[in-house]
């Protein structure tokens, strides 16, 4: 017997978890519980005090905490229960597909919660130095950009004064500006790829406006300093991303910030046996954002890394809505099964399958490209028939792309087909 019960258990109280909860409630679901390991709701947004959030959702520029506050208010107004300081350590399936979530907090100790459906909304973490294989010493002064952001924005402390940033992910770009504002000297941002990993607007507003050089096709090849960072050596890389001998330049600095990619935090999903997409490190999901384990949904950065929180909120609302339908027993799977295949520059898609019986009138499919493309097209085919061909001036790995599938159009092509499985292909074309 579990210690508690809730029809819908949401793991993570960041923007994804909050939007999912609010939307499930809008669908009439009463018995919801949000579990959050931090001491407040809002997730990573709490430390993103810069503005630029909510342009799509609210048509205004909010800071991270302001954006989060709008969703937290909905949770409070709707009296949706949540537990803070509560770490989920396990999810398993019991008899009849019932979900059992194990969590702990200092007030209640270790406890289990039984639920009908679970929404995974655990966000993501930053790739560490070791995973980047940067040689050299291992002194203090090497931080993930997010850790530095926490120190500066939450604690009001400086992690260093003379900074080199490796990786042009958005957090790194934001931190280049933040550290400069707070009195540090940012020497440069080095990026291994020939293109930036972050949003164009962040490069302009966070680097160009402060004369911070962005060194594309460069990487850190050595770290000096036995106790604290004393400097790093940066070299140019060739087309195989291998350092070119003779191009090394030494930068004297006391801090190296890493902004080299985010990895969805799927330890719990893995334990549960959810099937993972090796490209996104997030779950494979269908049109309802349901994972390979029925009744377990995923949204936000735990599903795939987003650059804009607005998209997180939208996606999460859909997950909340679908979880509510699942609990009501309304997720029949009649209709056809469509597998979405990505190729020719398109790296992955979310979702990867569509059950036409559950498809909404319009379904957004999100994905990223693997390279920088100029003046190309995005082509989408269903069983070889072109559904659309969208001209694209620029596409880059740092900016998420999307297409919208229209149910009526899909049905028109598939109608009367006596094959149960079909295929949609998304690709970059000239």
């Amino acid at each position, binding site marked *: 017997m579990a210690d508690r019960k809730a029809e819908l258990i949401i793991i993570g109280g960041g923007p994804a978890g909050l939007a999912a909860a609010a939307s499930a409630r809008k669908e009439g679901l009463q018995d919801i519980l949000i579990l959050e390991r931090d001491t407040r709701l809002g997730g990573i947004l709490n430390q993103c005090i810069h503005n630029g959030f909510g342009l799509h959702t609210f048509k205004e520029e909010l800071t991270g905490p302001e954006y989060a506050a709008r969703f937290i208010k909905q949770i409070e107004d709707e009296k949706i229960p949540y537990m803070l300081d509560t770490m989920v350590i396990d999810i398993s399936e019991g008899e009849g597909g019932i979900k059992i979530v194990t969590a*702990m907090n200092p007030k209640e100790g270790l406890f289990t919660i039984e639920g009908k459906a679970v929404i995974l909304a655990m966000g993501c973490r930053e790739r560490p130095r070791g995973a980047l294989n940067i*040689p050299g010493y291992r002194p203090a002064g090497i931080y993930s950009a997010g850790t530095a952001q926490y120190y500066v924005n939450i604690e009001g402390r400086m*992690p260093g004064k003379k900074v080199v940033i490796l990786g042009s992910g958005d957090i790194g770009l934001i931190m280049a500006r933040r550290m400069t504002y707070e009195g540090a000297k940012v020497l440069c941002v080095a990026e291994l790829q020939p293109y930036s990993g972050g949003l164009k607007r962040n490069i302009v507003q966070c680097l160009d406006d402060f004369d911070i050089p962005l060194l594309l096709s460069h990487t850190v090849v050595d770290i000096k300093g036995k106790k604290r960072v004393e400097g790093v050596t940066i070299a140019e890389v060739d087309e195989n991303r291998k350092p070119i001998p003779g191009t090394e330049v030494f930068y004297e600095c006391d801090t190296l910030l890493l902004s080299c990619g985010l990895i969805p935090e799927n330890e719990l999903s893995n334990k549960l046996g959810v099937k993972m997409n090796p490209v996104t490190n997030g779950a494979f999901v269908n049109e309802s954002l349901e994972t390979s384990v029925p009744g377990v949904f995923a949204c936000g950065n735990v599903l795939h890394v987003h650059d804009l929180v607005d998209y997180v909120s939208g996606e999460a609302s859909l997950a909340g809505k679908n979880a509510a339908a699942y609990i009501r027993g309304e997720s029949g799977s009649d209709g056809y099964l469509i597998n979405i295949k990505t190729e020719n520059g398109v790296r992955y898609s979310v979702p990867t399958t569509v059950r036409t019986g559950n498809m909404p009138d319009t379904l957004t499919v999100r994905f990223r490209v693997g390279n920088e493309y100029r003046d190309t097209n995005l082509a989408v085919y269903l069983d070889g028939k072109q559904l659309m061909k969208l001209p694209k001036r620029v596409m880059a790995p740092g900016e998420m792309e999307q297409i919208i599938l229209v149910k009526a159009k899909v049905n028109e092509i598939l109608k009367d087909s006596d094959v149960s499985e079909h295929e949609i292909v998304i690709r970059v074309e000239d």
Partner: protein
Amino acid sequence: MQDVTIIGAGVTGSAIARELSRLDLDVLVLEKESDVCEGTSKANSGIVHSGYDAKPGTLKAKFNVEGNKLIHELSKTLDFPFKENGSIVLELEEEGRAGIEALYERGKSNGVPGLRILEKDELLKMEPSVSSNAVCALYAPTGGIVCPFNMTIAFAENAADNGVTFKLDTEVKNIEKKTSEDGTNYYRLETSGGIIDTKVVINAAGVYSDVFHNMVSEYKLHITPRKGEYLLMDKMAGDLVKATLFQLPSKLGKGVLVTPTVHGNLMVGPTAEEVEDPEDTSTSAEGLASLFDKGAMSVEKLPRLTITSFAGLRAHEDGGDFVIGEVKDAPGFIDAAGIESPGLTAAPAVGAYVAGIVKDILGASEKKDFIDTRKGIPSMALASDEERAALIASDPAYAHVICRCELVTEGEIKNAINRTLGARTVDGIKRRTRAGMGRCQTGFCLARTIPLLAEALGVDEEEIVKSGNGAYYIEGKIKDSL
């Protein structure tokens, strides 16, 4: 006047201290770093070798086999992580079979129990991930894996619980042989913390042990630091192999090992490169790249799941063997020098042996109240749900997660700080509890560990260091320098 002073709180010095703490003696350990286990003992393969490798008749062979037996026992009495996972030496080329047979014979004459030659079929049955190039292998069932930090810390803590004093952040600068008025010999140690006079000196200074030896003896030692680099991989790769896989040295070089660690990660290493600077523990691009290629010779499907890399320094003495014993022309000065591999395995045996020498020199007697057990820090990650509930009942801080990757709680961190020889640095917490050892490598827990340390030590967060003086994390408040 101090009875005994040990230079160096690595595994050797700590094991000696622990054995000496059985005796009625005033024992002092001097360590230049801010914690025990900051030298080679923190950066090695963590293998408890079975003993087939060392040349018969050497000190390495003798202490390896004895040490292996002792660690099996001590891991229980002193509560540190150890697992007898077995060692396998792979022969990857047909012509090398003779090498495996020679190793088998060597092991037998060293007294290694249970050795067996595995043919390909049996090998692949035991270790399905092993490369199909493997021809045959030597299997040593008593080989094991240990947490080198917690073993060293366990020895040191138990020594301290039995009255040994540890002076950290204290560097020995010079040693002088002295004679007192009554004609007895003693040694004067000049340290960063003042002068210390002592009847017996034990030189367990790792890569610096030749320096101290040479200060008192005409028979010079010479140590060359030999660097070994490693890749440590995510726990997702941890069950790729069960045993520790070695490669038989061949014309391609010494080979690297692929092993699970006692905590369930996968480790590949070490390289071997002589260096000048005895503090040069940097890793290199070439080293790390070569490790992957060499590891893939043992396990073809080696995944690219590195979470960190590191390097350690072997204290290689020119003679090729451990140098252990009272120095001929320096009575009362005892070497435990040139302790390269299998020094971790040998440590408890070396400890007992050196304590025996001291006992004879000083005519010491056994203590009656010696405490021979020590309890480690509980681990929420490893505990059963019942044990977890009990820990939380004892202190709700055990329900407050600080390190998400390794599931380490505030309770464990407080325990690590508040115990005998408790952690004073972020690395000290990391090695005692595993907070920060997981796949995000402190990205999450750093900002949570620092305040706990600062509070417990009664200092500002700015004072908290990674591993010792100068290894600070925080440089003042925002806008300070505007």
